[in-house]
């Protein structure tokens, strides 16, 4: 029962097939591990479920971005055409709302798209210049053809020997320690 070293980020198991990783993630989850993450070279829907991760709030962020763009775009045009620079064009009313719809639409799209991308990056904590998993040389294959499961040392159930044993029982290619 050695206490987790402070310089230890966690334990990493490498798998060769996506199915093995999903199975391992399910097993780790059912063993009660909560501070764990899985890394893959492409999105695996089952993996997200297996880890029991929450659903993202990104759609709400995008909706808000779209609304801000929509209202901002419309009121910009209203303010410009009615308040700041009222010009009579062919006797049309100053607040000629049908003519304002195309720009309102484009601003809605712009707001939503910016919210989608910036929101995704912000929620993911990117850009992130440093992360302990990159200390493992073999982790470079996570962007090619290998699949990794990491159980973090901060997990209450984490115990270096026990957790190593547990990961070994999942038949990974290798179990590695991740330095912080």
């Amino acid at each position, binding site marked *: 029962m050695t206490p987790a070293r402070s310089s230890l980020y966690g334990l990493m198991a490498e798998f060769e*097939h*996506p199915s093995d990783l*999903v*199975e391992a*993630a*399910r097993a780790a989850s059912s063993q009660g591990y909560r501070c764990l*993450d*899985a*890394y893959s*070279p*492409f*999105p*695996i829907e*089952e*993996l*997200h479920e297996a880890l029991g*991760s929450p*659903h*993202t709030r*990104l*759609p709400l962020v*995008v909706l808000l971005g*779209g609304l801000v763009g929509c209202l901002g775009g419309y009121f*910009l045009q209203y303010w*410009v*055409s009615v308040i*700041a*620079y009222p*010009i009579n*064009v062919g006797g*049309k009313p100053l607040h000629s709302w049908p003519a*304002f719809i*195309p*720009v309102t*639409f*484009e601003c809605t*799209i*712009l707001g*939503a*798209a*910016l919210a*989608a*991308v910036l*929101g*995704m*990056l912000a929620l*993911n904590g990117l*850009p*992130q*210049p*440093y*992360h302990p*998993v990159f200390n493992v040389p073999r*982790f*470079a*294959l*996570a*962007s*090619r*053809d290998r699949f990794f499961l990491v159980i973090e040392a901060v997990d209450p159930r984490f115990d270096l020997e026990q957790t190593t044993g547990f990961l070994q029982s999942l038949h990974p290619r290798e179990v590695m320690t991740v330095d912080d």
Partner: protein
Amino acid sequence: MNEGLEPVADSNGGAMEVATRDVIAPGHTFSTVTDKISSIVLARRTPPGWWFGFAAAFLLTNLLMLAVAYLVLKGTGIWGVNVPVGWGFAIVNFVWWIGIGHAGTLISAILLLLKQSWRTSINRFAEAMTLFAVACAGLFPILHTGRPWLAIYWLFPYPNTMGIWPQFRSPLIWDVFAVSTYATVSLLFWFVGLIPDLATLRDRSQSRVGRVVYGMLAMGWRGSSMHWHRYETAYLLLAGIATPLVVSVHTVVSFDFAIAILPGWHTTIFPPYFVAGAIYSGFAMVLTLAIPIRAIYGLEDFITSRHLQNMAKVMLVTGLVVAYGYLTEAFIAWYSADPFESYVPFNRGTGFYASQYWSLIACNIVVPQLLWFKKVRTSTRALFTIAIIVNIGMWLERYIIVVTSLHRDFLPSSWGNYAGTFWDWSTFVGTLGLFLALLFLFVRFLPMISIAEMRAMLPEAKVEGRE
């Protein structure tokens, strides 16, 4: 890191008979897909063909620089535009380039929502094409203002010292918003798609510069499951947002014409007919670029005959929609019983620009009917030729729309003819050079096929339930 870098089965020879249905040639694994696509970028030696092509494109880009410099020096008088044809090459080229861009968004967004998985190997490339086409398009209206550095106050709403604001009732301002939003969203979509591949390049690059540059661009992407979840949500939402956007952009471009009262322009068919024409010309451009690139880089495994055939079919359909547009346009002009309106098709067919008009009909309607034949759709040479012809036809279409309506308006006293000058042609050919130069840089420094999406397409990516 190079373990398992076995050579991929080469299928350069008779690419067409390899597979007519496959989206990826059989036998590929996660590692072969990754290595094959990333090696084009990471190879130290640049192929001589690249240098040759890039040099030619760069030379033309310099012609553009020269044309722009002379324009700034002398003003728009160096172009052929004058009363009554005030919208010449600049607007023709603008509409042509914007239209070409539309195929990229259609492939990456609409086909994604329709779950057309074959799009995966061409979407990155088509998105880059969109981005560069929009960049070329954007140049024209800006240059057309004559003094671009002064144009900004009536194009964009910002508090300026004159207290002047843009006129939001004008379709030209709608266009500014539509095109700038389109450029921004296309860039975001493209960049988001690139992030996982940039991480791959960061991890596989042998040079320090490569690791640092790709590393910064990848922003620390590590492929975490929760990150992928948010990433996929963002990507899908972006696709959903880009779909109405792409339709709106050419609609707004067509408003530039349709809101005016000029005969031949003031018609409600313009928005759908412009959007169909945009997709038509865009797919023609994707084929024009994809056919040589897949041959040069040996990418027949990923851009298969099925892709080319599907694109040919999309071209055939949109070409027929465009043909229907021409027909309706002429019919309504006659049916309106308005002498000015009914003069437009008559003038197009028999007037000063008749040769351009009939060439456009031949290029856009007659020749593409060959695509009904499977033999034509499976022949890269025939497809390439037809694609080039359609590109020319779509340029002529915009030329006819812009010029014929302006050169014969309501008052015979203000009639006049128009032709592009040397500087008009230089600017146009120059943007072709800029477009190609940017594409050459793109294929050299970024993966032209989405590696992450290709991995997910492989049969081994399927998770088998073992419980």
